[in-house]
């Protein structure tokens, strides 16, 4: 069975006024049907650009290379009509901030029903009935009233559930969830994750979960890709990754998560330094300046992504031992 989404050697760069800014450097990633793949990394590492590239929503000044195949068909640089037939129907995206990602002057009902009117050719009446059923499924309380309300009349958690419900209306094969819980407080986060998990089981939807929140990822993902400065530095099954991180960056990222149990550290662990400027070319490993294990080789040659045992891949000259 071929994967639902197959990204090969994807590169995205933005042509600026005087410099070319590389947002994504030769990233490859597969998502099988019904699989949840997480992409984690710091802000600005290229996670959101990756989603937008798949959706075909990158701005006009983006230079894109490589290949993105959806259900076996190449969709990179596909004509707009072909993308519009996929978007919202078989390929959907949940955006980071549901406050600004919903149209302020249209009711929730209109914004949801229009997807079904467009892709399923339903009448408005029928589409609204289906939209209402979906709102109930994603556990929006008082759903009938919410249909007639505007986004600003809903709470943040409800808006995000509306976003999730909207993306699932046509039972897509793949949902790209870009930081779906970042704008929410912790109790709402848990509810939203529960909704995503249920929907995945119900519709066998493949999910690309983009997050910098490792606790969200741990609760949902089958496989995790760790991105740093536009590159994938480690990929592994979720259980392997959270048990034994092999890349020093992954390990550092995990040690930054505060823990409730165990001794209280004198201060929260942080990762010193900053990611490299994406406008500059780095000769060796992009993480070398911040890494505790840097050798002379790291600053000279960029480490290729290579397989270790099992499904783990790592781009490091000195991977951590198991």
């Amino acid at each position, binding site marked *: 069975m071929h994967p639902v989404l197959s990204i090969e050697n994807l590169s995205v760069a933005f042509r600026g006024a005087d410099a070319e800014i590389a947002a994504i450097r030769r990233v490859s990633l597969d998502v099988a049907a019904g699989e949840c793949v997480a992409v984690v990394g710091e802000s600005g590492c290229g996670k959101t650009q990756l989603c937008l590239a798949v*959706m075909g*929503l990158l701005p006009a000044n983006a230079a894109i290379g490589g290949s993105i195949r959806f259900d076996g068909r190449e969709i990179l640089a596909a004509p707009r009509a072909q*993308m*519009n*037939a*996929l*978007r*919202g*129907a078989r390929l*959907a*995206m949940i*955006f980071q*901030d549901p406050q*600004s*990602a*919903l*149209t*302020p*002057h*249209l009711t929730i009902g209109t914004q949801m029903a*229009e*997807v079904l009117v*467009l*892709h399923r050719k339903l009448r408005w009446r029928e589409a609204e009935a289906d939209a209402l059923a979906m709102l109930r499924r994603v556990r929006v309380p008082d759903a009938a009233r919410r249909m007639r309300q*505007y986004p*600003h009349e809903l709470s943040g958690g409800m808006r995000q559930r509306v*976003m999730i419900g*909207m993306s699932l209306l046509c039972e897509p094969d793949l949902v790209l969830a870009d930081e779906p819980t970042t704008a929410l407080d912790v109790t709402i986060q848990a509810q939203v994750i529960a909704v995503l998990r249920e929907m995945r089981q119900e519709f066998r939807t493949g999910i690309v979960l983009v997050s910098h929140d490792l606790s969200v990822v741990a609760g949902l993902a089958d496989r995790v890709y760790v991105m740093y400065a536009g590159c994938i530095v480690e990929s592994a099954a979720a259980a392997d990754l959270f048990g034994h991180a092999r890349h020093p960056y992954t390990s550092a990222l995990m040690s930054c998560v505060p823990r409730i149990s165990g001794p209280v550290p004198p201060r929260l662990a942080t990762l010193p330094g900053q990611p490299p400027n994406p406008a500059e070319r780095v000769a060796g490993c992009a993480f070398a300046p911040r890494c505790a294990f840097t050798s002379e080789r790291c600053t000279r040659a960029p480490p290729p992504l290579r397989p270790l045992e099992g499904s783990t891949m790592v781009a490091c000259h000195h991977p951590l031992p198991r």
Partner: protein
Amino acid sequence: MHTIRYFLGRLCGAVPTLFAIITITFFLVRVAPGGPFDQEQTLPPEVVANLNAAYGLDQPVWIQYARYLRGLAHFDFGPSFRYKDFTVTELIAQGLPVSFTLGALAISLALVGGVAIGTFAALRHRRAADHVSMVIAAVGIAIPSFVLLPALGLFFGIYLHWLPVAGWDEGSVADLVLPVIALCLPPLAYISRLTRGSMLEVLGSPYIRTAMAKGLPLGTIVFRHALRPALVPVASYLAPAVAMVMTGSLVVETIAGLPGIGRYLVQGALNRDYTLVLGMVIVYSSLLIFMGLVADILIAILDPRVRLEA
């Protein structure tokens, strides 16, 4: 229901504003040197005294003011001091339909044309069509109507014989074409720039990206998701646009020989025709206050997050 109550509340709130405008204007026109019966040939003092007595100008100013207000309460704007045998009410009632038709057509055309051009330019952002329409808009703002209207008349009237250069027959559409074009161009140009700016901002917003991610075609995205928020600045500009058209109509009506009310404001002021000036000020300021109110309600309709509170 809520909107109606707000509307009525604001109308009542406009009464003190209008009252203040009337009062200030009443005393201001009387402060200006000269009077309504000053002419090149000096009239005999007895005649002036008789005229002043006939129009009540021999009374103290505050009595004149009280009389004027009493007349206004009965919608009587008083007699014109210069147009003998005419009341101000009659003069305005004769000219207003012409001016109103001209102004309403110009504003409508400016709105429709401006929004269409602005939207088109925004969709062609930084391409040739965008630059061309914005240059035309800049020209439209810059060229005064007293240059544009004669130029249009010269071209379409005298060279091409398509349209009359000037003049007015009751109910003749052709007579209105060139004046409407000359009158609507400045607000049209301004509205197209406003729309382009706000449309560009809206098209770059996250909810338009969501709409694109749903696979919606461009037309649906523009008309259903982008146009309404993009029109908010245009609605705010409505009252200034009406003011612009009103002052413009003064020039355009004179050049095109249209019997509107535009000329009365300047003539009335120059002739010290106190009642006529006051009547015109009342008509113009009522219209402006009303358009401001319409604009506020429009904004509340365009953006459901805006709450109308009196």
